[in-house]
């Protein structure tokens, strides 16, 4: 789909373009589900579990049912439905047993939110509290309690996943490339270390919210703050055994998603309330606390990396073992495991590799997709490890990266050939290097050090990510011409802030040759009215939907030309068009306007031809394969977006306090479609990455109670946390199958930011930190060479992070 059009000839693509949705949002007129009210609507509240693991002995709902204004009360026992994205392992309300703190055990729909809450408070649940299993490594032990004793009975997607019944392993992803054993034998150096990070919350500013109306004849309408209308519908229909045509999902504006709204969430629960309330629409808005614990989070990861390196600094072999904490349900965590498994080595060539990535059930809120889909977590370890290895063998860490970077002719972990047009990681690294003045301190920086007494450190890290999606991922765009010759596009890729719709409008205007004002993208997505899209995830939207949009524009033009040729009594090959009309190229006065063609062309005597003009564009990922379950070999990647961050920090060596002075983020985006949108993604994602790096994370006590489900105790970055200077830089190696050469960048900005911080802090102070986030006290502790404290499960007898690296030099000194 790459059209090699010189930039000078492009009218909209690559040009600064305001967002098409900005004015609606700026005036407060954009409608989100949280703003919606319907006639006869009831309000729902949920009773959640105060325990991480407990048997439900009894639920007393009598008092709640009797409360005036209560229209429906449901508990798990009365429901016979199970939901699950890849492993169908979750009941709509906990049945018999609760598996995590915050899990829903009962729900109420009532005339007002106050009555609903009062009713929830009147519900009494008797629990027999059981010992939870909280750490994934504990969950692997032989005597660990099973989170899902019936794992063997669940349906799951067999082509991609391997659950192990009788254990807590929801999935084991394996990858084998070359002969790592032999390569480790030949290696001059073997360097091994473990890196960890806790669970993190997405924090969309709009919490999950849904309105569901279970109408007569099982006709269900769902209004939801969902990212993926069709996947939601599909999972919903599977769970309730309903025909797809019965269920309609409508998604208006969504107040942020970041992956947390990608699958199915509270919708089934709201649906059963509506059904029980006789079909009244029911609205449930998650509280901020529920957003942390009823709804899913990002998985905790323990990542162990062992690298074998040759004398001259080439990576010969790498063994990568990932323990992903799925929490109580598999949801997206199994696919995070799979996607991270095949990308685990980063943008570097690793000729001999072994990956074992496990998704492990524990009694904690469950993990799901989160911007970066595992890559934020494992790049933390990987990019810290790259520095460790480089320093251990006496090489500059950036040189070591460049020397081992994937390039034309390399093969990826799954055996994919990297080509010149795949992208250019070294160009990204170099741009970041230059942007932060890597390797030296400027005069100004030296003076700053002298004036503040702080130490300045710099680092450059690399990153990569491909969309994690099935090989058959598809989408469609429908373009309709309106009576006045303008066009309206519909698609169900949702835009919950990324700006993709604006980019797609630019591409449609470009391809049609129409002024941008004539192109509308319908914001509300509706599975009854709009064409299919798999999901809005994975940074695949711009590429797949962009291609579909271009194809739709071409189809619309072709249909218009067909009618115009008849109307003008001309051959199609002699026709041309501008934003207003189609004309005969050598007799431009012989013309018919799009307005005349829009709903069908009418001859002067009233005879008519054509009919309403519609263009359809369908696009499906090309040439991808499933991965071999034993070796992980195959072609999983639609595209690879490479990137790098350069960072400058200053640290107070006495207190561990630090300031991030500069971050420069570089991405090989193929082609910039909308410069300000790319910059917004780059900076927004980078700061979200800094949140992960500096302060965010779930803290539990030893019983598995989540201790910080609020903004008071789980901080997210404010404007004050923005680095003093931020820079976004693009590299443009065109993607051959990308629209105008573009590839996705929505997630990448968040990846490897934490490692850049860790490396820069180490370069400034020597502090070796292997657990993120890097709070000031962690930095202080590391500077003092004290063992890190694992207070992510407080008072835990065993730390989850092992900071001491194991470095061996074969036949030499260490």
């Amino acid at each position, binding site marked *: 789909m790459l059209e090699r059009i010189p930039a000078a000839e492009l009218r909209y693509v690559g040009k600064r373009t305001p967002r098409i949705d900005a004015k609606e949002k700026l005036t407060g007129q954009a409608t989100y589900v949280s703003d919606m009210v319907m006639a006869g609507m009831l309000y729902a509240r949920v009773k959640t579990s105060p325990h991480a693991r407990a048997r439900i002995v009894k639920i007393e709902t009598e008092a709640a049912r009797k409360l005036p204004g209560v229209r429906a009360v449901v508990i798990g026992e009365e429901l016979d439905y199970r939901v699950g994205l890849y492993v169908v392992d979750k009941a709509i309300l906990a049945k018999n047993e609760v598996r995590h703190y915050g899990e829903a055990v009962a729900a109420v729909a009532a005339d007002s939110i106050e009555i609903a809450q009062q009713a929830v408070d009147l519900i009494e649940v008797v629990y027999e509290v059981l010992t939870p299993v909280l750490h994934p490594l504990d969950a692997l032990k032989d005597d660990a309690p099973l989170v899902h004793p019936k794992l063997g009975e669940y349906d799951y997607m067999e082509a991609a996943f391997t659950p192990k019944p009788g254990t807590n392993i929801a999935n084991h992803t394996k990858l084998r490339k070359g002969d790592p054993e032999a390569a480790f034998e030949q290696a001059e150096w073997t360097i091994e270390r473990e890196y960890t990070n806790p669970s993190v919350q997405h924090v969309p500013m709009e919490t999950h919210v849904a309105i569901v109306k279970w109408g007569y004849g099982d006709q269900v309408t769902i209004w939801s703050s969902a990212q993926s209308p069709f996947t939601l519908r599909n999972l919903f229909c599977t769970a309730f055994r309903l025909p797809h045509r019965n269920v309609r999902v409508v998604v208006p504006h969504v107040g942020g998603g970041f992956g947390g709204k990608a699958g199915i969430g509270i919708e089934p629960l709201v649906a059963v309330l509506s059904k029980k309330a006789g079909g009244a629409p029911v609205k449930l808005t998650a*509280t901020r606390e529920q957003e942390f614990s009823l709804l899913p989070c990002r998985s905790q990861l323990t990542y162990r990396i062992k690298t074998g390196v040759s004398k001259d600094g080439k990576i010969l072999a790498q063994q990568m073992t990932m323990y992903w904490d799925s929490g109580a349900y598999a949801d997206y965590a199994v696919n995070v495991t799979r996607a991270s498994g095949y990308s685990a080595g980063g943008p570097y060539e690793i000729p001999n590799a072994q990956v074992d990535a496990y998704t492990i059930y524990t009694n904690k809120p469950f993990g799901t997709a989160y911007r970066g889909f595992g890559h934020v977590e494992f790049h933390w370890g990987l990019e810290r490890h790259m520095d460790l290895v480089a320093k251990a063998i006496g090489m500059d860490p950036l040189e070591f990266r460049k020397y081992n970077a994937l390039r034309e002719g390399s093969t990826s972990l799954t055996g994919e050939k990297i080509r010149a047009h795949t992208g250019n990681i070294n160009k990204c690294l170099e741009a970041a290097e230059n942007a932060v003045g890597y390797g030296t301190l400027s005069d100004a920086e030296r003076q700053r050090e002298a004036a503040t007494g702080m130490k300045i450190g710099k680092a450059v890290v690399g990153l990569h990510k491909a969309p994690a999606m099935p090989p058959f991922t598809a989408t469609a765009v429908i373009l309709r011409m309106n009576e006045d010759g303008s066009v309206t596009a519909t698609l169900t890729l949702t835009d919950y802030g990324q700006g993709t719709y604006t980019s797609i409008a630019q591409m449609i205007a470009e391809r049609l040759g129409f002024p941008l004002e004539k192109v509308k993208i319908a914001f509300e997505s509706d599975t009854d009215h709009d064409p299919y899209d798999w999901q809005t995830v994975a940074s695949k939207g711009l590429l797949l939907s962009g291609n579909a949009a271009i194809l739709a524009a071409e189809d619309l033009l072709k249909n218009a030309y067909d009618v115009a040729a008849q109307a003008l009594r001309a051959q199609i090959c002699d026709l041309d068009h501008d934003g207003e009309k189609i004309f005969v190229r050598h007799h431009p006065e012989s013309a018919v306007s799009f307005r005349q063609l829009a709903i069908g062309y009418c001859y002067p005597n009233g005879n008519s031809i054509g009919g309403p003009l519609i263009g359809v564009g369908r696009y499906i990922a090309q040439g991808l394969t499933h991965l071999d379950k034993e070796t992980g070999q195959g072609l999983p990647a639609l595209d690879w977006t490479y990137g790098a961050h350069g960072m400058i920090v200053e640290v107070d060596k006495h207190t561990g306090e630090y300031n991030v002075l500069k971050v420069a983020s570089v991405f090989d985006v193929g082609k910039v479609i909308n410069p300000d949108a790319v910059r917004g993604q780059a900076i927004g994602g980078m700061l979200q990455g800094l949140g992960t790096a500096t302060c965010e994370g779930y803290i539990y006590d030893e019983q598995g109670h989540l201790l910080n489900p609020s903004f008071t105790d789980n901080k997210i970055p404010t404007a004050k946390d923005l680095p003093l200077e931020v820079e976004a830089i693009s590299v443009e190696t065109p993607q051959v199958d990308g629209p105008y050469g573009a590839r996705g960048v929505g997630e990448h900005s968040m990846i490897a930011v934490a490692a850049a911080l860790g490396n820069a802090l180490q370069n400034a102070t020597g502090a070796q930190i292997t657990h993120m986030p890097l709070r000031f006290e962690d930095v202080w502790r590391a500077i003092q060479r004290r063992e890190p404290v694992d207070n992510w499960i407080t008072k835990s007898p065993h730390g989850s992070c092992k900071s001491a690296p194991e470095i061996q030099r074969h036949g030499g000194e260490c």
Partner: protein
Amino acid sequence: MKRIELTINGDLYRRDVHEHRTLLHVLREEIGLTGTKEGCGAGECGACTVIVDGLALNSCLVLAVEADGTEIETVEGESKDGELSGVQQAFDRHHAVQCGFCTPGMLMTIKDLLRRKPKPSRAEIIEGIEGNFCRCTGYEQIIEAVLDATGQLEEKGEIKHA
């Protein structure tokens, strides 16, 4: 129930409200001005910011009855006669909006800030909007929009090409 009177963006609203309901709730659910958003309901995120008698505050922390007789400004009053305000236009130019959920509260905080400090420095803008979370933009384009709206932007932030 108590009868209250609120002047919102210049229009008078009279409502009988439950004493325990917040101003945010009454604005959104009872008056139907849903531009103002709820992000936490606990005074932590700033999404619900409105201006009450000239002071920006979190409307989720104010009881509606406490606001009886006040003049309230919300995002709905920010554009006049179909024209975006200067700050709104700058937000538009600078992509200072992504999902838009923080935007109404952010605009009210900035309005309040600019009344007190018509030409705030970058540091003052940061200080001013610190209580308004934005999970999407990373704040930079918001800060640039405010600098631009106040005629202080020296160089428009741009993505650079390597």
